[in-house]
Structure formats: C-alpha cells, structure tokens
C-alpha cells in the first residue's frame, strides 16, 4: 500500500475519533455509560502499555502496577483536593498543616498556573512513582523472573499498607480514603493525555533503548555479551514504566473522584495483566485494544450476566451477581491456554496488516491454483 494512502487513512481515523469525542462531549447526558467506559479504557490503556513495556518488551515480569498507581493517585489527589473541601475530607484526623498552607498558596497563584495545575499534579504523581521505582529497582531488579514478580507484588502490598496506616493519617487520611477530587474539566483531556503518554512509550520502544530492551528480553546473557548494561536498561525500563503507571493512577483518581487504599489491591494488577494477555504481550496496539475491550465488556456489555434474565418466559439459570466475573476469568483461562498470543500477538496494528487480512482469502485461492498447475 502506498505511503500517501496510509497517511490519508491515519488522518481519517484520527478525525473520526476526534469527531466521536466531540459528539460525546455535546451529548454527555445521553451517553454516560459510553463516556465513562471510554475514559476508563483510555486510563487503563496507559497502564497496560506501561506494563507491556516492562513485561512484553523488557521481559521483566513485574506485578507492582497497583502500588505505583496508588502512589500516583494519592499524590495527585492530595494536590488537587480544593482548600474548601479539605476539612470535609479530613474530618476525622485533620490535615497536615504544611499541605494546607501549600494549597492556600496555590489558591492565590496566577490563573495560568491554576489552569495547568492538574497536569502538573499528574506529572508530580508520576515522578513520585518513578522515584519510588528507582529506589526499589536497585535491589529488586537483580532478581530473576518469579522472584521479581513476587517481590514487586510485595512492594505493592507494602505501599498499600503504608497508605492506609494510621501513622500517615494527616496526609493520606488513613483507611477513610480521599474524596472530592476534582475531575477532568473536559472529556477530551484524558484521551489527549493517554495519547501523548502512549506515543512517548512507542517512541521509546523504537529507539536504541527500546532495541536494547528487546535484546534483554530475548536473552539476558547474550545481551550483556553484546555490551548492553543490563542493570541500567532494566532500571530505566522499570522507572519509565512506573512513571506512566503513576500518571495513569492520578488520572484514575481524577476519573473516580474518590479513592481508598483498597482500590489498589492485587486485583487491580491482575486486571491489567488480563488486559495485556488478551491484547497480546509485546504489542502496544494490542494493549490499547485490550484495555478498551476488557473495560467495555466488564463494565457494560457483560453486565447482563449479573442480572437474572428471562428469555421467552424461561428464566436463564446461573445469571446472578458475580457470574460476569466468572465468565471473565474463564475467558482469560481460554486465552491463556489456547490463544497464547492474545489478540495481536507481537504484531502491531497497521493498514498493511488489515489490507493483507482482507486480501487473504483471495490470495490463498491464487496460490492454490498455482500449486495445482505445477
């Protein structure tokens, strides 16, 4: 396919997406479900791509995503809760006076600063997650596959325990969680942030660093022999992945408006793992696709499994609360056991791929004919 055709297709696709979003922005009240699914999908897509950067491209099986999301979410939430709401949120233990003073200073800041304050808060959340990752990466990244998985899982549990511990009551509000977090001012914003984050990660994957990551994934010892500094690259992948996970965590806080330590349990990490397994480990577009598909089916399309249904007066058995998740986990097991490559395998979305897919039935016939003629 010609390059110009691809460009046109790309532009058309982006225009369609933007048009859809603008349409949704103007019809917020009718399309509530679709909007919330798309927003959550976009947020989870960032985490999924970040996890894929680590698991699929660098070959580090890390299960600490929920912990890094928690750091990002709490940081962003603490920065963003407006001064007026602070006393209501921290009604049990009171807020740390330093944080309150900082918030009051921000309140008097010039308007341009106020406008980009939420983005700064997201970035700070990401930076905190990245800093923490850099710190724990030093000891943890020396570990091999399963040990790394269990150690990162352990860290995510430690973070959760710290966040809900009474010692940090005046900062994280302990087990009460945080609420009244201001949301996104515009529907387009989460998609733009998600797009930028994913684009940055794609650029990273295609850079020399990305190639080094893939070399480490294929064979650590060979990569080291080729002169790749194992620790440096692993640490880099870990820190960058955690940064974006933290940003996504902040966005999740803004999306949900209220968070508590329980939100960031191991189950959240498993959900994201499910997304990248279904999408295909080692495929960025697969992860994005997986994020939207999984979110949509989990929150929306498969909802009917949770309600008792009657078809032509016949009550369908088994349909009650919780059945949706059973179906979901069975689906995951089927993917893991029989379609280990997931939706996309290690392939990326491309117009050529689609074109070949459409052409395939026709080209196959041709080769068959050719074979017969020989």
């Amino acid at each position, binding site marked *: 396919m010609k390059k110009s055709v691809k460009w046109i297709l790309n532009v058309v696709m982006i225009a369609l997406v933007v048009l859809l979003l603008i349409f949704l922005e103007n019809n917020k009240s009718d399309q509530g479900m679709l909007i919330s699914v798309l927003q959550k999908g976009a947020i989870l897509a960032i985490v999924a791509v970040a996890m894929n950067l680590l698991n699929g491209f660098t*070959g580090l099986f890390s299960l600490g995503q929920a912990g890094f999301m928690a750091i990002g979410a709490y940081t962003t939430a603490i920065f963003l809760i407006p001064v007026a709401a602070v006393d209501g949120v921290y009604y049990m233990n009171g807020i740390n006076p330093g944080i309150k003073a900082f918030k009051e200073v921000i309140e008097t800041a010039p308007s341009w600063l106020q406008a980009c304050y939420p983005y700064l808060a997201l970035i700070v959340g990401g930076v905190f997650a990245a800093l923490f990752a850099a710190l724990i990466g030093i000891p943890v990244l020396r570990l091999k596959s399963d040990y790394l*998985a269990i150690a990162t899982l352990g860290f995510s549990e430690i973070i959760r325990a710290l966040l809900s511990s009474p010692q940090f009551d005046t900062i994280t509000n302990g087990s009460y969680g945080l609420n009244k977090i201001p949301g996104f001012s515009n529907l387009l914003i989460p998609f733009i942030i998600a797009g930028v984050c994913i684009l940055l990660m794609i650029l990273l994957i295609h850079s020399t660093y990305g190639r080094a990551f893939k070399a480490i994934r294929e064979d650590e010892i060979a990569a080291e022999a080729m002169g790749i500094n194992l620790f440096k690259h692993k640490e880099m992948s870990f820190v960058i992945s955690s940064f974006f996970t933290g940003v996504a965590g902040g966005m999740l806080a803004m999306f949900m408006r209220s968070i508590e330590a329980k939100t960031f349990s191991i189950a959240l990490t498993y959900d994201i793992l499910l997304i990248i397994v279904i999408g295909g480990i080692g495929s960025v577009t697969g992860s994005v696709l997986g994020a939207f598909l999984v979110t949509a089916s989990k929150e929306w399309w498969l909802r009917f499994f949770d309600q008792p249904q009657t078809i032509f007066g016949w009550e369908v058995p088994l349909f009650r609360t919780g059945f949706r*998740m*059973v179906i979901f986990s069975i689906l995951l097991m089927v993917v893991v056991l029989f379609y280990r490559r997931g939706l996309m395998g290690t392939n990326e979305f491309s117009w050529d791929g689609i074109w070949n897919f459409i052409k395939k039935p026709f080209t196959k016939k041709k080769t068959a004919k050719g074979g017969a003629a020989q």
Partner: protein
Amino acid sequence: MSFTTFIQHCLTGISLGGAYALIAVGYTMVYGILRLINFAHGDIFMMAGYFMIFAMVSLPWAVAIPVVIIATVILGVAIERVAYKPLRTAPRMSIMISAIGVSYLLQNLATYLFTALPKAYPTIPLLKKIFQIGDISASLVTFITPVLTIALVIGLVMMINHTKIGMAMRAVSKDFETSQLMGIKINTVISMTFIIGSALAAVGSILYFTDRMSVTPFSGTLPGLKCFVAAVLGGIGSIPGAVVGGFIIGICETALVALGYSTFSDAFTFVLLIIMLLFKPTGLFGEKIIDKV
C-alpha cells in the same frame, strides 16, 4: 507485657506458623518440581475452607475432615491437569500467568457461589476445647497445630528420602528432562506433588480457619503470598526450610500484632522477603543454582 501474655502470644505465633508451614510446603514442592509459583495455592487453601463449611453441615467432623482433604486434592490435581499441563513446554511467563488466571477464577467462582460476605467457619468441638495451664489458657488447636505440622513434615521427608516416588521427585526436581529420559513418569510425579501439596493445604486450612472463625473468597490471597514468602525464606525447594520459614513468619507477624503494629504486619512479611533476597537469595536452606549459558 507480663509473662503470661508473652507466653500467650508465643503460643498464638507458633500455632499460626504451623498453619503457614503446611501451606508453604505445598509451594516449595511445586516450585521445586515445576519451577512455578503456584499462585492458585492460596485459593486452593481458601476453597478447602469452604469445603469444610459445607461438609460440616451434614457430616460429623471426623468424616468431614477426610472428605475435605479428598475434595481439595481433587481440586488441586484438576487445576494442574487443566491449567498447567498443556503449558509444560511454554515459556515460564505464560505458565505463571495461567496460575494467576486460576487464582482469579477460583476467587470469582467463590464470590459467585458463596457471595463475598464472610461465612462462619464451623467449630470442631475437639479442637476448640479450652486448656488452662496456670494463667495461660489456649484452645487445643493451638497445641495441635505445631505438633501435627512437624509430624506431617517428618513423614513427608521420610517419604521423599526413602520411597520410590520420593526418589522420582528428587530426580525430577534436579533435572526435568534427564529424569524423563531415565523412564520416570513425569506426570505421575507432578500429580503426586499436587496431591501432597493440596492435602497439606487442606489440613492447614482446617487449623488456620478454626482460629479465624470465618472464610471469605479473598481470605486465601494474603496467607498464600505470605506462605510463598515463607518458602523463599527457607530456601525454595527445601521442605525443612519451608517449615522454618513458616514458623518465622507466623511468629514475627504475631509479635508485630502484639506490639500494636498490626497495619504493618502484612508489609513486614514482604520487607523480610526483600531483605532475604538481597543478602541470601537462596534462602536459609536452599542450594545455590548456577546459570549455565
């Protein structure tokens, strides 16, 4: 803290450690043979708790206990057959994801079948009998747990060291492929590992939940992870190591709770894990593995 409360906490810690040790043995055996963290093991343990609840509805406890053990063993072996066997040649990451998938499935299935609300665990009258020695009072289960754990583990070690299947297990854990070439039936050995692991998890679950009084679909996750940590602490693949690790974790956890840091008791386990992995990655009793190119 007075002397009696100290002894009381020690007893609780040892009892908890005994239950952890039994579960940790399951982890260490599966890891020794398949090189797989069986993430579903904690959920098998949780399911054993539910089996006991349902078995005790109609059966006396003496019949219910063997029924629960058999049901748990069937569950464990079925999981291995369905979820792990087809992936034997797959990369390690896929089989680990499969294990996580099974854990996810079991939790969701339990939530669906039994709801997420805690279900009361039946009391076994014999285990709940209260003993009074001086000022210290404890139920029989507190004394039985460590004794039973050690007896079972000694039996297991004897079996591994002196029987044919035990020899096969040792061979498989040393070298998977060579032992297959030597005529060892890998699938039988792996099934046997899962049978032993699940049976011990069932016994552990009875002892653990008798103290805790209730079961929820998520009550297997954290004990499961802690027991894996216990297995790593003792040196993965080593059965005595897993037992020692289980006791260490159980006692430390109880000590932290007793000192008033109960929010950190879970986190502490993982801190212990990370410290251990940093200074002695092979654990207390583990053998050093050298990577060959």
